[in-house]
């Protein structure tokens, strides 16, 4: 028993100083490998989900498809969850998480984020027939459902410091908990709420109560990779591709100031001599990407 404890402590102590880092930029790693490994979520329609036939769908996966073609590499999707996304990123199992993660200062101490590429509005989801007025849910006796890691939870705590939460792993679990009266209301983004409302038995508040920016997540201090992704998103914006994908999946034009305080970097369209791969798109690529079967672009 004593030897086991000593061995365990020794192992833990050896891990104390730091986790292994990555000397080479992810950009170089991706180009050498010839493949972009993108982490995506499967439970956040229409941003990221898997359809009944197992195809990876959503705004985020289409952005990944576009960026991989501009890099001139193939694409592999890895499904991530709120718990696994950071370990997968930090251990190099994914090159970027192209999903719906909200940047905040505490997270920014551990990872880096690109420009915001989705702006979601927080809504309240309740059982059919219940009030959708926020005021009815900010008292201490109401239980609010959400997913762990949901950026709206911190926003709700500002509205209602004494709020009680029940946090689940998946968005679908929260909807079931709401219908089973385990929670009184569910806070989530408007895009996802609109999809869940189709399942019946629930109502979505008309007026959003918060907004939540989402960005692509990359390893810390990998500025070459982060800059390339930022340039990629800005170029997509200048082309109009980002807006078209936004309209395709969310049904609206982006309603937030894209870029750095709404300004696109001057000369972002100029392709740099180093660390700025930007391949031409094959014929028919954009038609496929903006169509209903963009998953057919997956190689």
């Amino acid at each position, binding site marked *: 028993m004593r030897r086991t404890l000593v061995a365990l402590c020794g192992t833990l102590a050896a891990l104390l100083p730091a986790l292994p880092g990555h000397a080479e930029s992810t950009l170089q790693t991706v180009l050498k490998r010839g493949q972009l490994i993108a982490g995506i979520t499967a439970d956040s329609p229409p941003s990221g989900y898997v359809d009944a036939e197992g195809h990876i769908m959503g705004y985020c996966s289409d952005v990944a498809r576009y960026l991989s073609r501009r890099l001139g590499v193939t694409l592999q999707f890895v499904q991530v969850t709120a718990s696994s996304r950071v370990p997968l990123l*930090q251990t190099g199992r994914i090159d970027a998480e192209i999903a719906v993660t909200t940047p905040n200062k*505490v997270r920014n101490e551990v990872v880096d984020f690109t420009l915001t590429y989705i702006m979601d509005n927080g809504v309240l989801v309740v059982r059919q027939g219940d009030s959708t007025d926020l005021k009815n849910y900010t008292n201490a006796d109401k239980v609010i459902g959400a997913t762990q890691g949901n950026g709206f939870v911190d926003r709700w705590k500002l509205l209602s410091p004494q709020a009680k939460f029940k946090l689940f792993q998946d968005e679908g679990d929260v909807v079931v908990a709401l219908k089973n009266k385990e929670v009184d209301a569910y806070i989530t983004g408007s895009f996802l709420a609109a999809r869940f409302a189709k399942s019946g038995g629930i109502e979505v508040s008309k007026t959003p109560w918060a907004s939540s920016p989402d960005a692509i997540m990359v390893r810390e201090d990998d500025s070459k990779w982060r800059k390339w992704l930022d340039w990629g998103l800005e170029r997509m914006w200048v082309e109009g591709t980002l807006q078209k994908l936004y309209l395709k999946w969310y049904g609206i034009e982006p309603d937030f100031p894209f870029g750095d305080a709404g300004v696109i970097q001057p000369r972002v369209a100029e392709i740099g001599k180093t660390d700025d791969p930007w391949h031409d798109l094959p014929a028919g690529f954009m038609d496929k990407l903006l169509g209903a079967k963009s998953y057919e672009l997956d190689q």
Partner: protein
Amino acid sequence: MRALDWSILWQYRDALLSGLLTTLWVSAVGVVTSTAAGVLVGCLGALPLRLARRFAGTYTGFLRNLPMIVKLFFLYFVLGLPAFPAALLALMLHQSAYIADVVSAGIRSVSRGQIDAALSLGLKWQQVFRLILLPQVLRIVMPPLTTQYVAVVKNSSVASLIAIPDLTYETQGINVETFRGFEAATAATALYVVIALAVIGGMSALASRLGTR
């Protein structure tokens, strides 16, 4: 190179302590209820009644082959039980099937002659179990029961999937809020090891007291 920040564990000490207490409570209830149910089903399997033996066989065969998470989701999402009762019932059903097997094996290891002698002396079956079999069987099955109790502690972590704020749940909460998953997971691992060692130590002490070591 990312430096680890162990101070995050101190910052979230209240959450970790709360999660630990919930895990201890769920595990304790799980141990007591699964032992009671497992001993009952194990004894039913030893009775000379075909219906009782068939029930015991079906109970253990069905429940052992169903993953705990499936039982939990069925009780919570399909039957609509509240979270804590669903978690405790799932844990009890899951572990009692294994304990029933352990108890059955223990009963079979006791000489049949003792049972025959007791019955021929006019003892009823419940007296045979209470006075002759179970005192011996529980001493014999202490080691495998210890393994089952450690399994109860480990399986209690599945309750986090239905938002029961146990140690696993709180660890995941720290991870998704701070992105310091390595530090949080290390703390949870250490605490689970401590609980498991406490269970093993407790059962070892009990075994010594009962004179089985």
